[in-house]
């Protein structure tokens, strides 16, 4: 008696069923193929360890920049130049740069893996991400090591 109320006129029926719509990337007998690397595990561990380190590095950074010695008003070219004269602060900032970039990149990669459905979308989004990350890391590293306080 009761059939589904639809207004389509495509004439679906027992001999002409609607096409099957599979969810993206369904598992089959053949896919995914095994890769047998520890990459995912290292990435996972890296996220935890870098996260802990970053808490120290970033909080320390914020403390120095924003709270101690008169707060944010003290930050000037001279202040930065003075800090980067010491290798300790160079390493601190370098570490912070690398860890933050890699942490963020790995995190975004996870999000892309989780939400991008098509293989092509995944690939290009990740390429974009990796390029941006590499660019920022290279540029930042360059600045830290080639910083010259005697700017003319």
């Amino acid at each position, binding site marked *: *008696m*009761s059939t589904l109320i639809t207004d389509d006129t495509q004439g679906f029926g*027992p001999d002409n*069923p609607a096409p099957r719509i599979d969810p993206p990337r369904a598992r089959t007998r053949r896919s995914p193929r095994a890769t047998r690397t520890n990459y995912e595990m290292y990435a996972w561990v890296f996220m935890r360890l870098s996260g802990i380190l970053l808490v120290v590095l970033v909080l320390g950074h914020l403390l120095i920049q924003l709270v101690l010695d008169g707060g944010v008003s003290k930050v000037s070219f001279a202040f930065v130049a003075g800090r980067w004269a010491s290798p300790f602060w160079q390493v601190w900032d370098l570490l912070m740069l690398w860890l933050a970039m890699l942490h963020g990149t790995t995190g975004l990669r996870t999000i892309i893996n989780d939400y991008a459905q098509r293989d092509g979308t995944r690939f290009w989004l990740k390429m974009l991400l990796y390029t941006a990350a590499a660019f920022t890391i290279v540029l930042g590293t360059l600045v830290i090591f080639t910083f010259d306080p005697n700017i003319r």
Partner: protein
Amino acid sequence: MQIHKYDTVIVGAGGAGMRAAIEATKRSRTAVLTKLYPTRSHTGAAQGGMAAALANVEEDNWEWHTFDTVKGGDYLVDQDAAEILAKEAIDSVLDLEKMGLPFNRTPDGTIDQRRFGGHTRNHGEAAVRRSCYAADRTGHMILQTLYQNCVKEGVEFFNEFYVLDLLLTGAPGGRRRSAGVVAYELATGELHIFRAKAVIFASGGNGKFYKVTSNAHTLTGDGQAAAWRRGLPLEDMEFFQFHPTGIWKMGILLTEGARGEGGILRNKDGERFMEKYAPTIKDLAPRDMVSRSIYTEIREGRGCGPDADHVYLDLTHLPPEQLDAKLPDITEFARTYLGIEPYTDPIPIQPTAHYAMGGIPTTVRGEVLADNTEVVEGLYAAGEVACVSVHGANRLGTNSLLDINVFGRRAGIAAAEYASATPDFAELPETPGTFVTETLTRLRDSEGGERVADIRRELQETMDKNAMVFRTEQTLKEALEDIGALRRRYRNVSVQDKGRRFNTDLLEAFELGNLLELAEVLVVSALARKESRGGHYREDYPNRDDVNFMRHTMAYREVDADGNESIRLDYKPVTQTRYQPMERKY
């Protein structure tokens, strides 16, 4: 219509089917057809355990187990089969352990065992710890373990394939051989012919013709009915087990293990009434006796509740830790479905239709019998669908999980060996799909207006009222009349779903046809058995009558020249070896 060819085809993927498949796959090209997915089978609902005289916790031996099985079955058990069951039980349990089954353990790391109804030391002296268990999910663990091993062995499954017909060569009365089965693929509505040298039916029970039942919705006796329609006999169908402790009104099983752990049945006065009926082993008497005792209490006005229609299973004196460790699932059932806390409140229960002792008659190798002596070549059966008969008139708790493993294995080996030794496939009948096509077309196209649900409901109501724990000539005749009327109405049954894909509406109609036929066999067999024995209790003949009825009922479907059906009853002698019938007291 697709045609497949396999050496061995197994119908059903419960305990017996998968146990057979593990053996058959190693020996022959095997397909397993199941109307569900393998892990959905009702073996998973079994709770209490699997009996085997391992003697891990106290002295025990298989001979005592044999005796208990024979006595529990009210001496209608074929004793040679019971002996095999008890002897092979030990290896069956050990095999399952080696396959990975996580049994509960004793302090020294061996398989733990607990008490269960009817299992005794030294021929009835006292209850013995014989049931090997995994909390109260032994059946679940067995089903999962067997499926895991099927995955390991690479068993080929056809999921959601309903086997609706059995193909045989020859005519009833003559020499017969199995040619295969006809299956309906639920996903597409297509018919498939499976040609096979050997076919094993392991399709389970048929308890769905009762209303209050522990059986799954899918236990509709499809295997029994397919054999029946092809003129093969059904043995001892009048013996149906009513489990004493089903959840009141719902029928959901609460394991006998609850009483094995110390649970007590009480009436409305809080009295432990089983002391009156079975002074020695009290609450752990065999199921038929406990079920009758419960109904006697209810009939004599000592039932609980406003309608005095149930009794209590009392676990409140057991420590909560013990309930959590040994009976986690049933305590959860009480909480989920009744909103009761079993630590502090007794659980309302009533007997529930549980297990068909009867079924397709087989030899101890699982070969299906065409009459009292002749086997059907290449046709096997095991599990609840079969009647070996190791359960006789009443099955002991924990013996069914044993039955599926022992006789599932035997049938698997026998079938695969037969298939390997047989060079050719049996000829298919000329139009093998005719019966199924015609039946399904009739059901689908019928405009009769009778509804499946109404007929099934009325069938269940008359069966509960007239052919349950207590039966009399009058109630059985009433049931027979009702079933006859329902069968006439069934001819006008129609379904609403006219589609092809996943048409469960259509399949439910087909299953109802099976239930109606089998209910009629049960009632006719029960009418003729004018005695009380085990699960079959006739109030008009309350005593066991070994002179006239120490024999198995063999029911045959007869069709005369005009196409009128009738049921012919014949009898088969009981095999007795060691034990002479005695009065059954506990």
